[in-house]
């Protein structure tokens, strides 16, 4: 039946039908082939240049090679900031299949703290160039390095990279002067050339490291390389070598710095020593310091919190930012001001009672010596540090001459040439008080300023540099850290660093004031007579500052009630008095009597002038001393 049925079928027609369909399909195939060719034409001819560029962007990468950072030397050629090779465990996130797995595998090999992982995960999410490695753990020990190296083949995307890291061999005593470098943050990158810093690990944050960042960094090398998709460099197309950063040679004397730091003992405080013949800073101490190497490694949150919350404020640079009343150390300057404006003379005598009153029934401004000093003159007022003399002098002068005169010594301004973060202190004036308190200046305000108290606040650096100017009889240098950049004497822009003379109406007053300060030590009533017995002459002035809290920080006040009742102990001095080579300001916070800073100053003079430091500082000698 089926056969018969088939007999009716028109096979020819069916074949023709299918052939028609095959023909239609062939046309369709042809059309589609044309579509493909048209698409290829569009990509390969019309858009060719666009994709050519894209392909080149893919394969050509600019790689920066960070230059070795310039070293920082002290005046004797001792390296204070060094570059050291380290091995770090780095990871190329793009090549890691699974981070939990990597974490698990690594934990079997070396210790990586949760902090390090957290930090790593955070940086992984920030914008970066693809296939750039990120440090997971820096500064591997030799043992860790060996352990990881054995298993590296199993760990995709993990490598050990050799890098140069910054190292501060002498730690905390130098932290406030040298500063530190730290990891580059995205905020840092806003201020520098991003490309140049691409391969760099660190950027100078504070101190000399921060101020001289550009000089120390040098110029990054730049090479054009061909890379594959996994970021591996296949060939170098062009290359420009890096220019190493320039070395800095500071005025700083490492032994003096460390010695001063140690002499402060358990006290918080600051010491600034300046060479009056150059303005160069020989020591810039703020105690306590901190280990700057912590910041290089990337300080842990805990360590940082500890530093921040410490009641001794180790991160606070007292030498540059501490606002202290200069107390009696202001008296030589006040005396010179009186002479300059004719309010006092060397011969004029004054009867010093135990107190001073502006009006007969007014408030009694007490002298430190309850019984008074009797008949004295200007010279004696320095030797015995007679408060009442300066109460009356300041009251006679009023604030304007005081302000004008002290301004010439750098009070109330920033004067340091090459460190950031210096504070202005406060040299009060009529206008200042009006602006700040909407009140006129009262005579009582002047009385307090007369003995370096009241509104007046100065930084250790200001007092030290003013002392240095006094020591050199008015030859004023802006204080500075750096002597040589590379092998060239540093030049500050616009003649900023130029020295100048403070000229008094009677230039002999310099010598006479220095004489008076010499007698502070040599006179049997001198307040610093304990410094007698040197084979060179010291000129100095003691001071005990009534405490008010550090301006920068109110919390300080809140604790150790007992101790905070103690006065700050201050001393300024220079030596040899006739031909000063070093001037020093020292402050012991809550140090009580000024004997502590005086003794410290003398010890520094002995060591510096005779080059005779305790043997334990031999390691800080430097090669130039040999």
């Amino acid at each position, binding site marked *: 039946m089926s056969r018969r049925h088939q007999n009716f079928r028109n096979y020819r027609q069916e074949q023709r039908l299918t052939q028609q369909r095959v023909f239609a399909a062939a046309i369709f195939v042809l059309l589609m082939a044309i579509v493909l060719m048209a698409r290829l034409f569009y990509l390969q001819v019309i858009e060719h240049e666009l*994709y050519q560029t894209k392909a080149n962007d893919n394969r050509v990468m600019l790689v920066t090679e960070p230059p070795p950072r310039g070293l920082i030397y002290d005046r004797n050629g001792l390296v204070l900031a060094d570059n050291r090779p380290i091995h770090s465990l780095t990871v190329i996130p793009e090549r890691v299949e699974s981070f939990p797995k990597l974490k698990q595998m690594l934990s079997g090999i070396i210790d990586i703290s949760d902090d390090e992982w957290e930090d790593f995960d955070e940086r992984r999410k920030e914008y970066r160039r693809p296939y750039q490695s990120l440090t997971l753990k820096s500064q591997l020990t030799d043992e860790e390095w060996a352990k990881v190296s054995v298993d590296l083949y199993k760990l995709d995307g993990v490598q050990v990279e050799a890098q140069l890291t910054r190292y501060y061999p002498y730690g905390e005593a130098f932290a406030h002067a040298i500063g530190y470098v730290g990891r580059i943050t995205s905020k840092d990158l806003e201020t520098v050339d991003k490309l140049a810093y691409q391969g760099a690990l660190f950027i100078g944050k504070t101190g000399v490291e921060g101020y001289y960042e550009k000089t120390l960094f040098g110029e990054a090398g730049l090479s054009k390389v061909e890379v594959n998709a996994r970021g591996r460099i296949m060939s170098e197309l062009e290359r420009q070598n890096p220019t190493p950063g320039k070395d800095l040679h500071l005025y700083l004397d490492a032994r003096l710095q460390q010695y001063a730091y140690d002499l402060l003992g358990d006290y918080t405080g600051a010491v600034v020593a300046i060479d009056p013949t150059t303005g160069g800073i020989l020591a810039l101490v703020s105690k306590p310091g901190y280990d700057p190497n912590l910041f290089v490694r990337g300080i842990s949150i805990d360590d940082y919190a500890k530093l921040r919350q410490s009641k001794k404020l180790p991160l606070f640079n007292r030498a540059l930012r501490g606002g202290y009343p200069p107390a009696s150390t202001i008296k030589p300057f006040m005396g010179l001001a009186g002479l300059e404006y004719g309010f006092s003379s060397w011969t004029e005598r004054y009867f010093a009672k135990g107190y001073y009153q502006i009006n007969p029934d007014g408030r009694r401004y007490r002298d430190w010596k309850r019984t008074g000093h009797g008949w004295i003159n200007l010279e004696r007022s320095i030797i015995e540090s007679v408060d009442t003399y300066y109460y009356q002098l300041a009251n006679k002068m009023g604030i304007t001459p005081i302000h004008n005169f002290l301004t010439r010594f750098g009070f109330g301004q920033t004067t340091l040439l090459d460190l950031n973060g210096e504070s202005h202190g406060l040299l009060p004036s009529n206008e200042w008080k009006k602006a700040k308190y909407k009140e006129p200046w009262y005579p009582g305000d002047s009385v307090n300023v007369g003995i370096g108290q009241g509104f007046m606040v100065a930084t250790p650096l200001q007092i030290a540099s003013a002392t240095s100017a006094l020591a050199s009889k008015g030859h004023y240098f802006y204080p500075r850290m750096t002597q040589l950049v590379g092998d060239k004497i540093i030049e500050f822009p616009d003649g900023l660093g130029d020295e100048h003379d403070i000229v008094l109406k009677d230039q002999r007053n310099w010598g006479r004031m220095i004489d008076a300060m010499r007698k502070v030590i040599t006179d049997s009533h001198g307040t610093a007579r304990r410094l007698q017995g040197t084979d060179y002459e010291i000129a100095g002035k003691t001071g005990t500052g009534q405490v008010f809290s550090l301006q920068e920080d109110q919390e300080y006040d809140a604790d150790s009630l007992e101790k905070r009742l103690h006065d700050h102990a201050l001393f300024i001095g220079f030596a040899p008095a006739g031909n000063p080579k070093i001037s020093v300001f020292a402050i012991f916070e809550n140090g009580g009597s000024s004997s502590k800073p005086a003794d410290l100053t003398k010890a520094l003079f002995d060591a510096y002038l005779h080059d005779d430091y305790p043997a334990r500082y031999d390691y800080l000698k430097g090669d130039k001393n040999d």
Partner: protein
Amino acid sequence: MTDSFYRRALSFTNARLWKLVHVDVLLMGALLLLICGGLFILYSASGQNVAMVERQVFRLVIGLMICVALAQLPPKYMRRASPALFIFISVLLVCVLLFGVGAKGAQRWLALPGGLRFQPSEIMKIVMPMMIAWYFSDKQLPPNFKQILAVLGLIVLPVLMIAKQPDLGTALLVAVSGVFVLFLAGLGWRYILGATALAPAAAYTLWQFMHDYQRQRVLTFLNPESDPLGSGWNIIQSKTAIGSGGLYGKGFLQGTQAQLDFLPESHTDFIIAVLAEEFGMLGCGVLILAYFLVIARGLYIAAYAEDNYARLLAGSLTLTFFVYMFVNIGMVSGILPVVGVPLPLVSYGGTSIITIMATFGILMSIQTHKRAR
């Protein structure tokens, strides 16, 4: 005129001998041209990996052997075996869903003893058109509505099973191979137009059945720049490779996209981009021409085949081969979504080469077993 041209071409060789071993010289010649060109590209795409090229040669030789072996089998035996084969492979597809093995969330293989793996869906690409062609072999063409529905039913079941694995690319190709038979059998144009009109609705339904990663592919296709380092990476890099090749290409082994590994899957699915980068539009033109020769010969065989079964089967297999090529080049050049279809006979990889060569074995059988008229 064409016929005499072929005769003259054939007269260079002993036409009787080729007929005896059931090899169609023109089809074989076009295939060998394509295969040799493909190996040449693979050498560059694999990063001059000779071992890889050798493995590919090995597979191709196996494929050629299967091709020639199948060519010996007269089409009538194929026709008779079609329903049984279809049922057998369908059962295997059920097994894949039940016991299948696979990777990355897809379950596509059956594990055979001895560590071998077997992918039934791949065989279905051949068996599906065989089945539909068999169905039409004793019926008068064009098909009526009832027959169309029956055929659609035959298509839908295996396709759904393959789509469920999930393997959307293969499912679509299997469906297409069945639909081509229907088309060649003379499916009325009004049905075709109607289906085209319904396509958007079908696309929406398909979307509902898609897995997330499949949807992602479609989304990436629509806007590759939305995720340039993730799912868009492949298509951006392949377009860059193709576009940067220009008219004449960068030269053999000189393609930076391919040689520096920016081009993903350069030796498998994206191999055409290597050709396009190194030999430019000219090279692509030659390759497409080679495909066109193969397809033209296949369609010729279909048009002049002996009976309905042979015509429908040969036509469908040839057109499916074309779809392979078109989908691959289309996806690599960015006019179609990325659906994991290799470039037939050129991409590195096992299963597809074997099935495609089997396809051409069937075509040769159809061409060489014709009774002389």
